[in-house]
């Protein structure tokens, strides 16, 4: 009996550790793109993802792209906000420092807006990937 309880406890320990990482990695990955991989010791992947998402976001800002605010207006504006919010910490930083153009006034600003939205969407992909690694569904 005692032996079976000990075995049961040993079997549960890795599962608890796994579930903790499955919560921490995606949350960290949302706040800092790529950090969900870095915290799981996937250094190269994490750095490459961080550079890619951050470069897209900052280039978008440099092109005077628009950072969408939470809204209930036009459907495309709502979707723009959802995409932007995927960038997590970068989005919060951008809103706090009032980055981005108010209106899209040039073709370059339009590209920039798309860059910022796609940076958020790509970060959602990295968050899902970090979760899969934490759940041992991916090496």
């Amino acid at each position, binding site marked *: 009996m005692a032996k079976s309880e000990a075995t049961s406890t040993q079997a549960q320990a890795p599962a608890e550790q796994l579930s903790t990482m499955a919560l921490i990695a995606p949350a960290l990955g949302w706040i800092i793109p790529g950090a969900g991989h870095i915290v799981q010791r996937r250094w190269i992947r994490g750095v490459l993802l961080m550079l890619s998402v951050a470069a*897209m976001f*900052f280039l978008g800002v*440099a092109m005077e792209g628009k950072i969408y605010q939470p809204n209930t207006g036009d459907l495309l504006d709502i979707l723009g906000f959802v995409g932007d919010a995927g960038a997590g910490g970068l989005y919060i930083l951008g809103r706090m420092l009032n980055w981005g153009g108010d209106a899209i006034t040039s073709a*370059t600003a339009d*590209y*920039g807006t798309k*860059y910022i939205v796609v940076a958020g969407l790509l970060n959602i992909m*990295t968050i*899902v990937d970090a979760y899969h690694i934490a759940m041992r569904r991916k090496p």
Partner: protein
Amino acid sequence: MLAMFQTAHLQVSHFTAALVFSFFSSVVFGITTRSLPRDMFRYGAYCFAWFMGGLFVASWIMWLLHH
């Protein structure tokens, strides 16, 4: 330092914007959708090639429509 991005007023051509977009998107696609490093690289290169091919074809279609 981060504020320089806000004041940079970067102007790029459509081709440059699409090229940079394709590169970074391909990096993320490759890493997140494949398990092994070699497969990640190959799929990233595959996505990048399709982005560039699509850009090339779309450019010619727009040119033909314009003329």
